[in-house]
């Protein structure tokens, strides 16, 4: 990658746990790599690593991010190459260390090294706003905030957005796990409500999808699964990150309405 423009460090965070940061990281990373970028996904959840499991690369870990940051191994040794997707690399977290083995200063240096090797470096931030979060955002150029349509998730995302702004990072919003039926019934926050409260740029809407669990269990990337709506949504998010601003944000809809819409396009169902 010598002589090429420097890459971008994007942190994926949420404040709250269990909203789909890891899934988003793995999927967006895979989609960016499929688009022909050199991508590294870094698991920053030191002590509770699981990005490797989601990506099905668990059995190939030799070195981890702590080794790479501390200079105990070369970057290339820590980066595990994905066999199915070209140009996709994983730098796993250390399972035996603690989050404060790394410092934000070390992460800034690490980020600089990574930018020279990759086009996109996705940092999978741990939940919370403590040391692990500080380390993840230290070297970030951009941020994606993953948020579920649920009040507690919105509250935490709001806090994280404030912290990101305080570091001069303008985050973008991914709304994950939308259940269109519930939104339609008014039982779930709509993405409009969330954008109104969080007031940041929306980059994608992802609906709840059984394929996510299948993908996590089998280690087959979500974006490679045919007919996965969440996978499609993540691919579109990746394209938008990649500069394709023209890709529209699709609002997840219930099956019935979808077919009605298609039907009405062909002059049916009137």
């Amino acid at each position, binding site marked *: 990658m010598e002589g090429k423009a420097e890459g971008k460090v994007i942190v994926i965070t949420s404040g709250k746990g269990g909203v789909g940061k890891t899934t988003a990281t793995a999927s967006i990373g895979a989609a960016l790599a499929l688009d022909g970028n050199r991508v590294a996904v870094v698991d920053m959840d030191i002590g509770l690593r699981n990005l490797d499991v989601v990506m099905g690369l668990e059995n190939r870990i030799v070195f981890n991010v702590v080794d790479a940051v501390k200079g105990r191994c070369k970057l290339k040794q820590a980066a595990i190459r994905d066999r199915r997707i070209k140009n996709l690399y994983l730098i796993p977290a250390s399972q035996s260390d603690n989050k404060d083995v790394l410092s934000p200063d070390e992460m800034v240096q690490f980020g600089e090294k990574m930018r020279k090797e990759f086009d996109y470096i996705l940092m999978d931030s741990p939940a919370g706003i403590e040391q692990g979060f500080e380390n993840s955002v230290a070297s970030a150029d951009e941020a994606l905030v993953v948020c579920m349509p649920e*009040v507690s998730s*919105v*509250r*935490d995302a*709001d*806090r994280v*957005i*404030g*912290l990101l*702004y305080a570091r001069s990072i303008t985050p973008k919003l991914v709304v994950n796990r939308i259940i269109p039926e519930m939104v339609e019934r008014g039982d779930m926050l709509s993405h409009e409500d969330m954008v109104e*409260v969080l*007031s940041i740029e929306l980059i994608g809407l992802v609906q709840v999808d059984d394929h996510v669990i299948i993908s996590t269990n089998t280690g087959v990337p979500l974006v490679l699964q045919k007919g996965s709506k969440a996978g499609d949504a993540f691919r579109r998010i990746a394209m938008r990150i990649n500069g394709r601003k023209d890709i529209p944000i699709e609002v997840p809809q219930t099956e019935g309405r979808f077919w009605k819409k298609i039907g009405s396009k062909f002059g049916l169902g009137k």
Partner: protein
Amino acid sequence: MKETRDVKVRMKGVGDGLHVAFDPTLPADSIREELNRLFKQLRHLAINARVTFDIGENEGYEELLDELGDYLKAQFGVGNVICPSKRRMVSEGITRQRDMQGAWQQHQSDMLMLTGRVRSGQKVTARKHILILGDVNPGAEIVAGGDIIVMGTLSGIAAAGQPDNENAIVLALDFRPTQVQIGGIMAAGLPPSGDKIAEFAYVEDNAIVVEEYLKANPFGRQPWPEVR
């Protein structure tokens, strides 16, 4: 001078004039006698001097003052004689307006005005009033010594009139705070009104009351615009 003696009239030089204080309830003759004594000592200094009479908190006595003024003019050739009580009689309205203008200038910086969104975990504090052009998200906290005015949605915690001003109000264009505190009184779990209407909270009988702002128009019946 002879301060130890029973002093009926006090005189001191103020700028380019003479300030003469006395108790107008005393007999006119004794005041005149005392003035006579004092002004005699001044000799030529009294000529054309500007004399200001001060009769303290007493009111009326215009006749006495006029008489004494004329006496001083005739006897010692003083310039003009001013009675402060007369000067104070300019209409209350004008005084008020003047005070108000002065006050506005003086109080200019007592308000903290912010634009943007106050997010969860952020806290804004000010000694006096706070005006926010933007929204206050759930989990955010606004603490003011005076009023809190949010030109947007207030969904966080608002504490006005801290620590003990129960005259403070909390006003928002979309009023749905998680908690409101005015002075030492607190209210939580206020039922949301549903629509986006400007509402405000104030203290009445040791309880927080929320009303539609335009309907209640709390300051509309005030005769004068006042500095808050």
